């Protein structure tokens, strides 16, 4: 098949997936409201829990941030973006399986990998947009335009930081249809990523093995970068560049690795059939 044809099919899937997501938001207002409320629920929950056992000052010192509330809001958005990328990808495949539409989705492209990448792009953009739209009003009210401007930079970095997750999400999604279980077999991936990435606490608090694992997770670097952007100290800009390099490296390693695993799983699925 000529390259142009591949590109055309790819663009069609991106458009279809995007219109499906928008339709879902329009038709299911409760889901939309819940998606926008979740970062706030997380923020309030952690604030209430934390302050009843300790103090916000201690949290500020432990996290080395100037404004702990703003930080918690951004951290919640980062957390739910990561959750969203993996959840939307794996759940949409599981949904297709339950609804019986999976064979048609698979047949819509020459390769299922192409579908996974196309839907991954939409899902990542969608997850970022939802979460940052959600926290923008709070950032504007508490921190004013300067904070809002910083938030936009964080959104840009988040876009890059989520790219490595796309490969992981795609593998998780495919595994969920190959393994004959009722639910998502990699459902633990999301909380594990959040646990080791130290979104809401300093990594030093974790046991050594989990702290070591955190080095492999892109969300860890995203949180650190967000802290630096929020502080805006010129001396730290170099570290932001380092984080961006790390994202680039992880994107290559995880997505190449993910691509190879997906191709392997796809071959396996075609040979053995998937539980549809």
């Amino acid at each position: 098949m000529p390259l142009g044809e591949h590109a055309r099919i790819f663009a069609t899937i991106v458009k279809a997936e995007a219109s499906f997501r928008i339709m879902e938001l329009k038709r299911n207002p409760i889901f939309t409201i819940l998606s926008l409320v979740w970062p706030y629920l997380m923020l309030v929950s952690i604030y209430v829990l934390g302050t009843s056992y300790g103090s916000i000052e201690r949290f500020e010192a432990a996290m080395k941030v100037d404004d702990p509330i703003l930080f918690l809001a951004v951290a919640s958005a980062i957390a739910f973006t990561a959750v969203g990328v993996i959840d939307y990808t794996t759940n949409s495949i599981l949904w297709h399986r339950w609804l019986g539409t999976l064979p048609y989705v698979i047949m819509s492209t020459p390769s299922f990998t192409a579908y996974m990448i196309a839907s991954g792009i939409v899902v990542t953009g969608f997850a970022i947009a939802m979460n940052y739209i959600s926290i923008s009003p709070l950032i504007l009210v508490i921190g004013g335009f300067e904070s809002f401007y910083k938030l936009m930079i964080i959104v840009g970095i988040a876009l890059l930081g989520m790219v490595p997750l796309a490969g992981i999400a795609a593998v998780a999604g495919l595994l969920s249809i190959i393994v004959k279980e009722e639910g998502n077999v990699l459902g633990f991936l999301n909380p594990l990523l959040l646990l080791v990435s130290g979104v809401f606490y300093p990594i030093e608090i974790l046991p050594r093995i989990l702290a070591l694992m955190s080095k492999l997770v892109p969300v860890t670097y995203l949180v650190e970068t967000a802290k630096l952007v929020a502080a805006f100290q010129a001396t730290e800009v170099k570290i932001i560049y380092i984080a961006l390099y790390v994202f680039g490296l992880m994107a290559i390693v995880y997505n190449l690795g993910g691509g190879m695993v997906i191709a392997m799983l796809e071959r396996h699925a075609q040979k053995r059939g998937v539980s549809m």
Partner: protein
Amino acid sequence: MINTLSRALEQAAVMTWAHFKRAWRMKYNMVNWAIIDALWLLIFIFAGLAFTPPEYYPRVVPILFFSMVLWSLMSTPIWAIGNWVRFYINIGLIDEHELAGASHVAFLATRSIPSTIISIISAIAVGTILYLATGVNPLRVGNIPLLLFSMVMVLSMATAYALIIAFAGMKLKVPAPMLDIMNIAFFFIGGVAVDVDNIPWPLTIVAVLTPYSHPAELMRYAVSGFPPYLGFAGEVLASIIFLALLAAIVAVVYRIAYTDYRSLGARGVGLT
């Protein structure tokens, strides 16, 4: 009377047997669920500890740990019962139990027994990781029988709450977990995560009126000797009264849903 009771017990026993069989056949799923539960609990526990100076860990860690265990006990029945009621109707089990004269309440309620395994596995994992992270033994408990009593009370209340939203979901034709808007509020402002004494004034009333707050106060008393808000006897009595009240609400909501089921059929109360 004795015959009816012995038949009900026999039915409850065989229902529990079937639920355990199912749980065993889905053991990997259960372990997966327990891991997910443990990981979320740990995120909240570590977030809580980020606010706490390390010198307070010996006092805070056990209470925070058991508060999160209570959260796990509060939330698993929502899925095990509230979510499962859809399958109960849609795969036709409701009709078969109705024809057999078996209790729908008993069938659904006994599902929370094997689902407790998830909370147990997750509590063991969380306790171990917490010990590795802080060096504090989270299982350092003053009064074990009282702790167990408080947990059984929370599990019973959570089962009743899950039954209420399950039957309300049948009546309203809405998936039960979507009706679960109260659990998270119960946890944070209802005196489970935070002791009632520490909750700011008008919210104290909400906490005292939250059923879970009373066994949670007993839990804190059992773990660290922290004096309960209504006193020991007061909290025991309040726990029993609230459990009875929840049971009465279950009976009323069930009656309403059951009337619909009998007059509209399974499809009339099914969700798909």
